[in-house]
Every structure is written in C-alpha cells, then in structure tokens.
C-alpha cells in the first residue's frame, strides 16, 4: 500500500498506472505512478522493505504483504495464499499456513523459517513470496 507523495491518496502497488511501454526505462526505474494524480512515487527497493513496516497503530493499515517483505522477529497473520491451485499451496495449508493463522518469522536466509504454534517450518523464497500476511 503506497501513499502518494503528491496528492496523499493511498493506492496498491498493482493499481499503479502502467505507462512503461513507451518509456526507454520500461519498468526498470522503480517508480509507481499514482492512479489518481499521475505522480511517480519511488518504490522501496526489495531489500529495504523488511525494515519498512513499523507499527503505525493505524487500524486502516491492513495491507497484506508477502512474507518475503517481513523482517525477522515479526509476528504476522496469514491473510491468503497466492496461487491456490498449486498442489504445494494446499500442502502449505495442511502444514498450518492457513488464512487466519498467526506466525512468527524466525529467519530469512538461507531459507525462511516460520514458527506456527509449536512447529517450525523452513520454506524457500519462492513459497514465502506466495504467503500474504498482515502485520499487526
């Protein structure tokens, strides 16, 4: 969820206006164009994102982020799993990575380690990217 630096209105990353086709940088500039006013907001680099999500106390800030954007030690709740048709996703659910479940991220490298209840699981970044969580 991005708040536009110019007009102040919030929008989601996937709502950003796609004008990259004509531009010589073609999507490589790391900017998100606000769908409301057209202002180009710089997107936070991937490696910086885990440090970004501080608890603002704002109850409206129920954005879901992929697990890969979460910092270690954070507690989060599973919002949904992307690619639900994949067999492995159903397996993740059986392991307990269920929408509504609370988890704690213990480690990010070399693989993601999450703790759910008493169990710990290791998953790679591909799978972790499919787990959408909300941070409290």
């Amino acid at each position: 969820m991005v708040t536009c630096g110019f007009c102040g209105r919030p929008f989601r990353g996937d709502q950003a206006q796609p004008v990259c086709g004509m531009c010589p940088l073609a999507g490589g500039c790391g900017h998100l164009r606000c769908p409301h006013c057209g202002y180009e907001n710089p997107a936070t680099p991937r490696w910086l994102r885990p440090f970004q999500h501080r608890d603002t106390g704002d109850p409206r800030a129920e954005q879901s982020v992929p697990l890969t954007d979460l910092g270690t030690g954070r507690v989060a709740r599973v919002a949904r799993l992307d690619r639900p048709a994949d067999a492995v996703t159903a397996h993740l659910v059986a392991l307990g990575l269920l929408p509504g479940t609370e988890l704690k991220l213990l480690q990010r490298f070399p693989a993601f380690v999450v703790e759910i209840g008493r169990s710990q699981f290791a998953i790679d970044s591909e799978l972790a990217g499919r787990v959408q969580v909300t941070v409290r």
Partner: protein
Amino acid sequence: MSPGLRTSCSCHSGGAPAAGEPASLRVALVGNPNVGKSALFNRLTARYVTVSNYPGTSVEIARGAARLGGRSAEVVDTPGLYALGAAAEEQAGVRRFLLDGGADVLVQVADATNLARMLGLTLQLMELERPLVMAVNMMDEAERAGVRLDLAALSAGLGIPVVPLVALTGQGVPQLEQAILEASGRPAPPAPVYGNGVGTAIRAVVAELTGSYPAGRTALAALVLQDEPDALERVRAAEPDRGARALARAREQVATFAAPPAYRIAVERQIAASAIAGSVVRDDAATRRSAWQRTASNLLTRPISGVPILFAVLYLGLYQFVGQFGGGTLVDWLEGWLFGQVLGPLFTASLSWIPWEPVRSLLVGDYGVLTLGLRYAVAIILPIVGTFFLFFSLLEDSGYLPRLALLVDRLFKRVGLSGRAVIPMVLGFACVTMATMVTRTLETRRERVLATLLLALAIPCSAQLGVILALMASQPLSLAIWSLSVLAIFLLVGLLGARLLPGPAPVFHMELPPLRRPRVGNVVTKTVARMQWYFLEVLPLFLLASVLIWAGKLTGAFQLVTGALEPLVAALGLPPQTAGIFLFGFFRRDYGAAGLFDLQQQGVLDSIQLAVAAVTLTLFIPCIAQFLMMLRERGVRTAVAMFALITPIAFGVGFLLNQLLRW
C-alpha cells in the same frame, strides 16, 4: 510404482491365525511424519524396523505380525502423510491402500505437542468411514512442555477412541491394543461435515455415488472434487454410468467455489481442526522450545556458523569415524585377521578336495565367491557401511538433517535440486544404490532424474571412497586432482542439467522438528535395521557378481570385453591391466578401486595415471546393483539414456585429464 505397498522383506513370520480363529485383523498405522509411528510399530510387533519417518528413510512399508489381546493381527506401518490428496509417490501408495479398504482398523498416530496440526489428518481419516482409533503419542514431551490435553472431550467430540501413549517406553500400548480390538467390532464413526459450501459440495457428490465402495464415499467425494486420479479411477470402475453423474455434479459444485477445490477443502478442514483443538488443548508454556534448543538451532541454520559446523561434522564423522576407523582400523582387522588368518585358509583348505577346477575356482579361486565376494562384503564393505549408518542415524535422530537441508537449499537449487535432496546425496556416500532408491521421495520427476544422474556420475559410494582415499593418501596431489575433477563434473552436469531438463523448478519446504539429544536405543535400532537391509539386499549381489565374473572368465566373454576395452584405456594413457579393472568396476565399484590399489602396490601406475584412473572409475557407469535400481526407479528409457550419457563423459573426462596433466 506398483499399486500395492512394498513390504520390507524380513518381516513375515508367526502370528498367523490358528485353525478356527477369525482371520487376522488388519491394522494400519497412519500419521504425519515424525510422530513416532515406527516406534509404535516396534512396540506392537516386536520387530526391528527403521525407526524414523524422516522423509526419505522410512520408504519401505513394513508389515508385522502382532497379537492384540489374544487375537492375531497384521500391522502395517505407512510413510508419513499430511494429506490424502498429496501427489508424491509415497503418499499415493498409502492413499490407494486406504481407498481400497486395505485395513480393518486405522490407527492415527499423532504428536501430542502439535495436536492442532494432527487433527487435519484425523478428519480426513474419518472421511474414510472405517473404524478409527487415535493414538496420541509423545505424551511425556507434552507434559514436559506444559501442554494439557482434554482427551476425553476430544474423544467425545470426534466420536472415536483416543488413547494417550509414550511409544518409546511402551506406556499406553496395552490400552491401545484394547481400543483397536473394540473398534474393530463397532461401526465406523460418522464422517465430518465441513462448512462454507464445502460440506454441501461433498454431500452433493456423495449422493451420486451409488456403487459399492470399500472405503467411505465422503473421502472419495472430496478427492473427486479435487480431480484426484486414483479416486476418479475408482469411481469410474464402481459406478454403472462410469461416474458421469458424479463427475458432472462435482464440476457443478467446483464452479461455485471462489478458489481451487483442493485449497478450499484444505482450508475448511484446518478451520474445523483448529476449532476442535481450541477446545481441547491448553498450552501453558510461555516458551515453546527450550533456550538451548533455540540457540543450537540458530547456530546450525545460519551459514556463518552452520557451514563451519558442517565441515566439522563431515571431518569428524565421515573422514575420521567412517574413513579412518571404519575403513582403516576395522577393515584391517577384519581383512587381515578374520579373513586373512582364519577364514581364508579355512575355506581354501576345506574345499581343496573338490576335483573340478572350475567349481573350486568359483568358490575359492582368485575371484571366488568365498575368497573374494564374501570377503569384500564382510571385511571391506560392511565396516565402512556400518560406521556410516551409525553416523547417519545419529544425525537423523538429533534433528540435524532438516537444518542441513535448509543450509544447502540455495546451492542445490543451482543444480536443479531442492534442499530435500541432501538426504539421498548424503546417503550416496554410503551406498549409491540405496540413495537412488531414496530419490523417490523427491517431489518432482525432474528432481528425481537429476539426483539420480548426479548420484550415478559423481558420488563415490563408501566402499569406493574408502579405498580411493587409502590409495591416494600418500599422493596428496593425485587426491586433490581427483576431488577437484569430480566436484567440477558434479557442478557442470548439475548446472547444465538444471538448464536443459524440462520441468518445474523445485520448491523447498521442510518441517524443522525440535533438536534433541539422540536417543541411544533409537540410533542403535535404526543402524541395525539399515545394516540388516543392506546385508539382505546387497550381499546376494556381491555373490552374484562373483559368479558372473567366474562365468565370464570361464566362457572367455570376460577376455573378449577386456580386449575391447584395452585400446580405450590406452587412449587414456593407462596400462592395459586397467581394462580389466574397469570391467570389474561395473560389477562392484569397489572391486575396481581395489584393483587400482593392487596395481599401485605393484608400482605399475605413476601418480598421473593414478589420478586419471581414479577419476574415470568414479565417474564411470554405476555398478550393476545400482543400474538395476535405476531401471526400477526411473524406468528403462531414462536409465539407459543415463548409461549412454555417463559412459562417454567418464572416458572423455579421463582422456582430457590425461592430456591436460601431461601437457
């Protein structure tokens, strides 16, 4: 894979019903991995079995005979299962077994410290509408961890008997036996009903299943909604209209789901399971794992400490324990004293009266069954393999292996494998044949093929490793060249294979059980079970190899092939005797390595030739036992293709290396 379950070969005997008794009660132990199914199996049947369900090791399903309260029973131990609908081969076997009504009573073994997760499977098993008993194991750990369970409420809520157990000590097992007997005489519990449209969908499909089925229609309906092939097959066979109505109904229902059916059903099951757990589990402990467990786990899973620890473990375990002690001390004792001074002369002397030269040579000649085959199996292979299994079982029981998998996952991804493949790879250093069998636990075919190829090509089995290390210990340069060449080929073939082989990239997910001090009983049992397996499966192959060599020599076939190979080895700059060694190397990789050893002792090989020969032999076609295993596991076409790929690589690299080193 065969539709039935594979059975471990040494577990049939006794327990058959006497005349006039009712037929043996068929009991199946089912459950998630790491819950102690195998420990319980041991308790019920008093048989040795590999006590672990770490993915990849309890691959063989064991059957044992037991007497439950005076009634004869047959107990089946199955591999760990998370979901009936799972695609992996191992789980497919269990699914078919359950759908075909292979057991009279199902016993779900659950981990008391993780009940919420176990209940998902309980609900699935209840869908099968067969007598079910829940055995809640590891009650001692739950108590230690401050987890309190209201099992009476659980039993009342689910409608099935629930028995607390500590399988390792045997507590609760008599009560379980009683519960199993009672459950066999009572009707099955009703199938669970799920919410949010899933229950309605299942009911709608069940209504169209009018045929007769050995197992619950609820379970079938749930699988049909997920388009699961085994269920579809059974519905087509049992329905008069080949399941047309049922399938149409399923399609109709699935269209109303917002998400794919497998996902929706899994979610609803977990919601139901969590709800049940919520009212039954009281978790008091503030810290879930003890401080030392967390610290140790962190040390192992972070590369900065994990990698040095791994090297230390490999050095102490593989090099010192298996290599020096097993391959050195034990082998010297067994070969030098036992065979050299006691058995060897005994065999030769006691059989010298046999008048026919060919028979004598078969038994006690240069390549005799007794003098060579048996000696190699007992004096050379067994100590190395035995120490390796001990080492591996220790690692396994402590919970180290999943953490190792986690460490190497990223690296393995480069060669097209996931961290899970670390198990067959490590096992490959013991016996490549066994490791090839274990590759069946890898999830995608692409991974299985790549792992098999790398195992066959670049991983030396323990017997070969022991001899090669001993061979080149005095020539560190040759040793360095050998290890670098083999490693380079491993990486090259892995990288290329990962690029060229079509198929989905592997994903990595693995449960990390808590680290624990290895339990001596467990470790010993596992080691003995593996050694028993190895002896029973592999020793006959050794003896067969001796016979084949003997037959080959007798008929002159051997000389023919050796003659054909001689120009080939000459191109590698090697003396003509190595042709025979390579041929032997096919029958037993270690015969080949040992042959090199003899040549080196005789001073026939210089250090360059030694390195070239060792590299070619390591890369060379796998031994005959392993080739047979490849045929079985990967199929004829793939196995032959690998054979055709490996042979030129092995000789080609040898040729290049020779050119390079003499330049």
